């Protein structure tokens, strides 16, 4: 499903980033980095928008030729970015939503882990396996 999953901290540095190993990793880092501007734009636009649009899920951030980039911002301003292959047209919006939901649940578990220091890179096996679950479905 996803080809790259990234978690970005409040202060916009990466907490976790993982992409499928077969492809150019650096390219995904760039893609995620670029997407942060769009996230910022969407979040700041929300103040003026209607109340019912204040959702955590930001929707499609931008499509490129090969990929679609989706974004999600938690209340603690942590950003999740998922990159999926454009060729995968069967993917529905609510499937993406459920992926983000899973990711958020898992991230919350990481945050509540007493051995995790907020702000550090995520090195949790449970979180890893959730992310793997999202990526494996592609093959």
């Amino acid at each position: 499903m996803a080809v790259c999953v990234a978690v970005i901290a409040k202060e916009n540095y990466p907490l976790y980033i993982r992409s499928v190993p077969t492809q150019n990793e650096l390219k995904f880092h760039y893609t995620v980095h670029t997407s942060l501007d769009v996230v910022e734009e969407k979040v700041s636009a929300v103040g003026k928008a209607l109340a019912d649009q204040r959702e955590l899920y930001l929707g499609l951030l931008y499509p490129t030729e090969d990929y679609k980039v989706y974004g999600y911002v938690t209340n603690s301003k942590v950003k999740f970015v998922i990159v999926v292959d454009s060729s995968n047209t069967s993917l529905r919006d609510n499937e993406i939503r459920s992926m983000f939901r899973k990711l958020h649940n898992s991230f919350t578990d990481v945050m509540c882990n007493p051995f995790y220091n907020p702000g550090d890179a995520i090195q949790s096996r449970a979180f890893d396996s959730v992310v793997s679950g999202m990526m494996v479905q592609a093959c």
Partner: protein
Amino acid sequence: MADEALFQFLHNEVIQYVYKSAENGEMENGRCVSKLEHLGFRVGQGLIERFTKDTSRFKDELDVMKFICKDYWTSVFKKQIDNLRTNHQGIYVLQDNKFRLLTQLSSGKQYLEHAPKYLAFACGLVRGGLSNLGVRSIVTAEVSVMPACDIRIMIKQVN
């Protein structure tokens, strides 16, 4: 409910533990309150992450404060804040007329001097929660009559 009692017992024991270890010279005496506050800070960070998971995004600072007063306070202390005041310039005062961690103490003046240690954790909870929501603040508490307490939040403006 059982979890209410458990939280209070645990909280009391944590205070006991921190002050006992200070007596035994493992820690400087004056640092107990800040130690408790720091414990609360970390707990608050985790809690707010969990509680805000299914809420919509907050509009502004006041929205965040309302959440703290209603949902957050109810989850931790089983009641809402009784009164929220603000000067709209970054100072908020949360008034709780029957603060749960103080209800087991005598309502006279007898234990008034011990009140700070029972409030430090709660202050930390609030500060941790706010900081995770991106609001940096200084949180202090005041007690004048026993089960009531005022929690004062000063927002640090981001430069």
